[in-house]
């Protein structure tokens, strides 16, 4: 079965550089979520998109932006990178609940970003 695809798997950037992370959701899933997980920490919600529109926003720095495209893939753009941005970035996708039943999330394997 198709899974959520994230690219790249690993990324090393220097301070003040920019990075773009990509997420390809499960076919037919209409919602994409981005999470940031620092070392030894729980995942923190950054932002989500439903039908290509931003649906919710969490603790996402102003230096970050994201969008969802017509093919439903999403990109997280990170600028002026700081050492503290080093983390695992997860993408997850889901389908809008039908008859009030939520069918679950599918997580990608994550992009490990290291800022040096």
């Amino acid at each position, binding site marked *: 079965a198709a899974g959520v695809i994230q690219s790249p798997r690993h990324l090393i950037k220097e301070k003040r550089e920019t990075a773009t992370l990509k997420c390809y959701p499960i076919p037919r899933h209409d919602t994409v979520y981005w999470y940031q997980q620092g070392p030894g*920490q*729980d*995942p923190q919600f950054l932002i*989500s998109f439903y039908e290509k529109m931003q649906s*919710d926003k969490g603790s996402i720095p102003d230096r970050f932006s994201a969008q969802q495209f017509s093919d439903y893939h999403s990109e997280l753009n990170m600028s002026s990178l700081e050492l503290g941005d080093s983390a695992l970035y997860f993408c*997850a996708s889901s389908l809008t609940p039908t008859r009030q039943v*939520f069918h679950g999330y599918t997580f990608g394997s994550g992009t490990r970003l290291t800022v040096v």
Partner: protein
Amino acid sequence: AQTVTQSQPEMSVQEAETVTLSCTYDTSESNYYLFWYKQPPSRQMILVIRQEAYKQQNATENRFSVNFQKAAKSFSLKISDSQLGDTAMYFCAFRGSGNTGKLIFGQGTTLQVKP
């Protein structure tokens, strides 16, 4: 705002024994979803079990079962016949009833299964 609390940062259990991981949450919603996720060293997020709040019966998945106490807002995970492969970080997570609801994670519990 919803919160999820896991008060056990680390736990250990002998292989083949049973262990229970605790989770409490806070919400004003009456319909929601609760999850337990496993994150092994590979850091892949793997769904262990889920519970719909409107269901009174506790969910079970093979060796994994939950004790869902809605009034107490408690959602513990019991792992029976623990195996070495169960060694991982375990996250309790909450999703509200909204159509585009995000997951809210607890702080995680690191479980070590000892031979």
